[in-house]
């Protein structure tokens, strides 16, 4: 259990989320894949702040700040993800009301 293990797990989750975001037709699956990608980034940030040597960044002045900055980043990412999912669900429901579909390949009236 060291830094590389966590980073590889994070990369795997991010790759799965990337695949789902690109390749799926249902917009709810796309939203879930985006959530997976954000969570993978959270894991990477927290693992970096846990394992990297903060005295090399700060020259030993403020160890607390650099040792916990990754967790603060993850907190902000979680907040932005919450806002994004609220807006995403609102958009899904609006599109479903007006066009009776949740497939992103069917919502293409801007192409014609």
């Amino acid at each position, binding site marked *: 259990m060291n830094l590389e293990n966590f980073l590889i797990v994070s990369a795997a989750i*991010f790759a799965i989320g990337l695949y789902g975001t690109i*390749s799926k037709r249902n917009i709810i699956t796309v939203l879930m*894949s985006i*959530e997976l990608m954000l969570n993978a980034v959270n*894991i990477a940030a927290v693992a970096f702040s846990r*394992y990297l040597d903060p005295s090399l960044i700060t020259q030993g002045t403020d160890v*607390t700040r650099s*040792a916990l900055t990754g967790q603060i980043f993850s907190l902000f990412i979680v907040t932005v993800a919450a806002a994004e999912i609220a*807006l995403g669900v609102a958009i899904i429901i609006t599109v479903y009301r007006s066009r009776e579909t949740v497939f992103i390949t069917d919502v293409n009236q801007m192409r014609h």
Partner: protein
Amino acid sequence: MSLSSTIESSVITNIAFWVVSISVIVSSFAVVQIRDLFRAALFLVVAFIGIAGMFVLLRAEFLAVVQILIYVGAISVLIIFAILMTRDVSDGNPPNRLKIPASIVGLIFFLVFTFVMVQVDWNIQPNPDPLPDTYQEDSVEVYTKFSYFHVCFWFFCDPKHSDSESPADREVQDDTSYDLDEKLDSDRDQSGLDKIFTDTIPSIAELLLRDFVLAFELVSILLLAAMIGALTLIREK
């Protein structure tokens, strides 16, 4: 302290790491592959809980609790709500015509990142837990010593609280009034970063309200705007 390091890097935490990571990867793969959307959302919940477990393994107990509260409690409920609202047209979870290029892109991404992460020489802390004596500086300020989250999550893995504490420390912990000088004096016997990762919540609060206060306020404005935007979007005309 050496006892805690030997236990923390022991077989048990390694097994926990592998179990958690394999379950997270398998369930997130199920999220994108299962045809039934409702089951995909349930696997997403499993993946979120596993990621909270990874936060616990990384000593970010506060983030683990936040993960459970926000992702498992709120976001998955919203997603399931959206699935149920649009259920009558959702005939499964079909891929579009980009399936094979998307899988190639994902695989290349994973391989390149794994290669980079293994190759780069990271500036790892010499001994992540506990930390060497060079961190015993008086400038590190951690105000409180006792954390219920810490006790909840690390009770079985971290015997530091039960074994190596003098009765004087225990008196300081049980005192609910915040006498800052007393706490700082009692904190100086532990090294800095080990102390930080023992008890992250006061430091996170301090960082959020002092160093990152502008981002904190901006994020609250963002949440307000998102709430108003969502209400405006789904309002009946």
